[in-house]
């Protein structure tokens, strides 16, 4: 049985899909940057500090899964014309990135100034 294609075009600019891809690129960037931070932290101090970077990798993975799931779900509200704004995800990613970049900056500062 072939799947029925949507008969109604509600999103000619593919905004919805582009936004899902932007979330996925961001999630992937979080994972890559987290791995780099984990490697750096482990190389300059005790290996347990790598856990901060690994946490970033895990959160990035979570965001990746959420983005795929959420944007599939969003077809319904978009067709119905309901609000699609979700500050919670933006806050999580924003806060995680602030914590991550702050930790990276402080670690590098401490390591470089104290040798």
């Amino acid at each position, binding site marked *: 049985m072939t799947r029925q294609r949507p008969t109604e075009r509600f999103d000619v600019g593919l905004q919805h899909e*582009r936004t899902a891809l932007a979330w996925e690129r961001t999630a992937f960037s979080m994972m890559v940057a987290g791995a780099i931070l984990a490697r750096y932290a482990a190389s300059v101090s005790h290996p347990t500090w790598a856990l901060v970077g690994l946490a970033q990798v895990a959160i990035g993975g979570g965001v990746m899964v959420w983005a795929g799931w959420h944007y599939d779900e969003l077809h319904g509200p978009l067709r119905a014309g309901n609000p699609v*704004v979700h500050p919670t995800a933006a806050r999580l990613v924003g806060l995680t990135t602030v914590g991550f970049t702050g930790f990276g*900056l402080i670690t590098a500062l401490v390591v470089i100034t104290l040798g």
Partner: protein
Amino acid sequence: MDDRSGHGGSLGRRIVPEDPRRIGEEPDYRFTLANERTFLAWIRTALALAAGGLGAIGLLAEELAGAEALGLGLLAMSFIVAASAYRRWALQETSMRLGQPLPPSRLPGIMAAATAIVAFAAAVLFVVDQL
């Protein structure tokens, strides 16, 4: 004073503005999603700067004098971008919901200048290193 634009108020509100969903009317969903993509692009910029900074410190520090300072500069830029990303998103969302012009921001200009300075400094360090 009833300042709903998010520009004033306490320090906490300045960093994390009020939830935009409580203000004004829902804009066209395309604008909501475009604002979201812009936020994500700033977050990726912060992550790329952090990766570049850690890379400069971790990989170049022993080979290139000054690489650590460059790396710290990139990490500082990264933190500034990350710390302002949510605020930017929320203020723009609020403006759209109130039908007001988007708030002006100096960050794109500052980032362009800072990136140019880092690139120039890296080029100078490289040339000096080769002498």
